[in-house]
């Protein structure tokens, strides 16, 4: 049996489970908030065109609108100023092979529960590797914080000094790119950077370094607690938007039942 036939068979039998890591596109799902003089990320919106009525007797459909960066979404290198001159930096230009790959999940949920500004650091990554093995080149690395279980105001966790949510330190991101050659970095929070990420040097280090190195970001992922630390395969294919800097996603993981 070929590998793909084997995969299909085991998917059908349930030996390989499909885990949905995607939030529902809901008009009330939070988006990133920037200072009001800046342009803002559009919320997801849906307008009914017809619903089996005088506007279209036999069919129902909606017009939808949103930002490239609304809901569970993909960040392409072109999203950040550090990646703007890279080749194949927009979602329509990225090699589609990059959209499917192995995934390492670093569980920071306990730390994030205790400290909303919890940082993923190099020693933490090395500690994870000591337990689960070295992060392979080309892997997605996901920071599990269980933040996707938060609802309402607790998700952005916005205060007068800005949002408070966990994220990687500049050194950790550099380590993952320079020492481990990762494909990209994904989080359960609204951005790959910590809520207070603008106060690092450089500001928003995950965006700055990842996209400057041609790597990708996955944001607003959900249910990372359903994934094993290693061994799963992540499928995250953005819409093919011309010159798009990102895209809403349906993120799926294939998990082998043990």
């Amino acid at each position, binding site marked *: 049996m070929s590998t793909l036939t084997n995969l299909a068979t085991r998917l059908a039998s349930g030996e390989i489970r499909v885990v949905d890591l995607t939030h529902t596109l809901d*008009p009330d799902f939070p988006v990133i908030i920037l200072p009001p003089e800046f342009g803002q990320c559009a919320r997801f919106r849906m307008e009914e065109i017809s619903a089996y009525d005088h506007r279209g007797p036999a069919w129902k459909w909606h017009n939808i609108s949103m930002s490239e960066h609304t809901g569970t979404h993909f960040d392409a290198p072109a999203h950040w100023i550090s990646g703007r001159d890279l080749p194949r930096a927009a979602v329509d230009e990225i090699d589609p092979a990059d959209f499917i790959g192995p995934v390492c999940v670093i569980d920071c949920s306990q730390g994030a529960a205790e400290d909303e500004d919890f940082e993923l650091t190099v020693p933490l990554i090395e500690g994870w590797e000591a337990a689960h093995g070295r992060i392979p080149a080309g892997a997605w690395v996901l920071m599990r914080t269980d933040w996707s279980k938060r609802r309402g105001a607790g998700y952005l966790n916005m205060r007068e000094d800005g949002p408070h949510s966990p994220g990687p330190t500049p050194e950790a991101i550099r380590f993952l790119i320079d020492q481990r050659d990762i494909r990209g970095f994904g989080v359960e929070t609204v951005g790959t950077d910590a809520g207070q990420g603008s106060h690092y040097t450089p500001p928003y280090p995950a965006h700055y370094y990842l996209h400057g190195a041609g790597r990708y970001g996955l944001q607003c992922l959900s249910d990372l607690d359903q994934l094993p630390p290693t061994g799963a395969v992540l499928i995250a294919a953005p819409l093919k938007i011309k010159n798009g800097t990102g895209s809403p996603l349906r993120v799926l993981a294939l998990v082998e039942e043990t």
Partner: protein
Amino acid sequence: MTHPLSPPPKKDPQKRSVSPTRPPEVRSRAALHLSAAAAEGRFALQRCADCGKVQYPPRDACSACLSTDLPWQDMAPGGTLIAETTVRTSPRLYFRERMPWRAGTVQLDAGPTVLAHIHGDVARHARVRVTARLDQAGQGVLVALPETDTPNMEDDPLMRALSADPKHRRVLITDARSAQAPALARALQKAGAAIIFAGEPESWRPYPQRAELEALGVQILPMDVTDTASVQKLAGEIGGKTDILINTARFLRPGGVLDRGDTGFARDELEVNYLGLMRLAQAFGPAMCARASDGVNAAAAWVNLLSVGALSNARPFGAYSASQAGAYSLSQSLRAEFRPSGLRVMNVFFGPTEEDDWYQPLPPPRVTAAALARSVVDGLQRGLEDVWCGDIAQDLRDRFRRDPKVLEREMTLGGEGA
């Protein structure tokens, strides 16, 4: 004195709601000037420019000298009730449902004898104050009030019909995040509103005045005027007990066409200021229209808060002004569409506001939220259609009426250059 109005009992769910009926609407074109003045709370009649005679009823030629130069002027309200009757039967459904109805003639100090509705506290042959009010057909009628205020006089059934008084009514403030929401809630509460609802967009984003609204007892419910489903949902829940709707949702940013360079904020302005109004009206309008004669707490008014830039574009808020002009025009369509029910549309125009951060670089005067709230409540109590809050709004209104082109030229000065 008028018997104070009690809070209405809960509706009998086995009874059919009363369909709205209206007094007669037809007027001569000349008489519409009386309605136009009443729409902003003024009592005006024609005074002949040639012989000085004050005219009543409105006409096209002077009843004394046949001059056609009959400018409208505000009149002194004083007069004496000289005759009256109580109508006990009428072929008009509107009056049949409201019998008995007191009407009479008043000798105005200004000259003519006028027909007027008579307040219950006016004694026979008494001195009266004549005011012009809009009735449920949206037309100006004259009302003889007691010369000095009497206790609870606003509770007279006549006055309830000629106003949209918040007393005992349930009011929806559409955007709890609006800088004006807490002051509005306070003023409405003081005016006797029974319940104040406030729509809250994006509850995932904190804002300091939420606690203030909660402390006032405002019922905060989710609604975002840019999200059709959320508007429909709230209308489904409370549309049948929304007696007054005050649309406080507003998206405001500085900038015109060239200095922005994109359509991002303009889209938000249209989504909130124009389409938001449309979504609200499509969701809440039908039920409010259906309840326009539903007893003491009948649906009474739809209130739009509009920048006076709606009249003539006001830089540096050029694109925002355009969205306000759109909303203003839409409000006129709403007026026409609500007319058959008697539901009023009140537009409150104002200039730069104190509480909205975006006006911070502008010099005073600015309209405070408290002043705006007073204007809203006063306008509702007097049943107005157009309210001009603050010096800037009133000044621009006057200049617009004198000559819109001259105002436009003043508002679009290029500045001294080479």
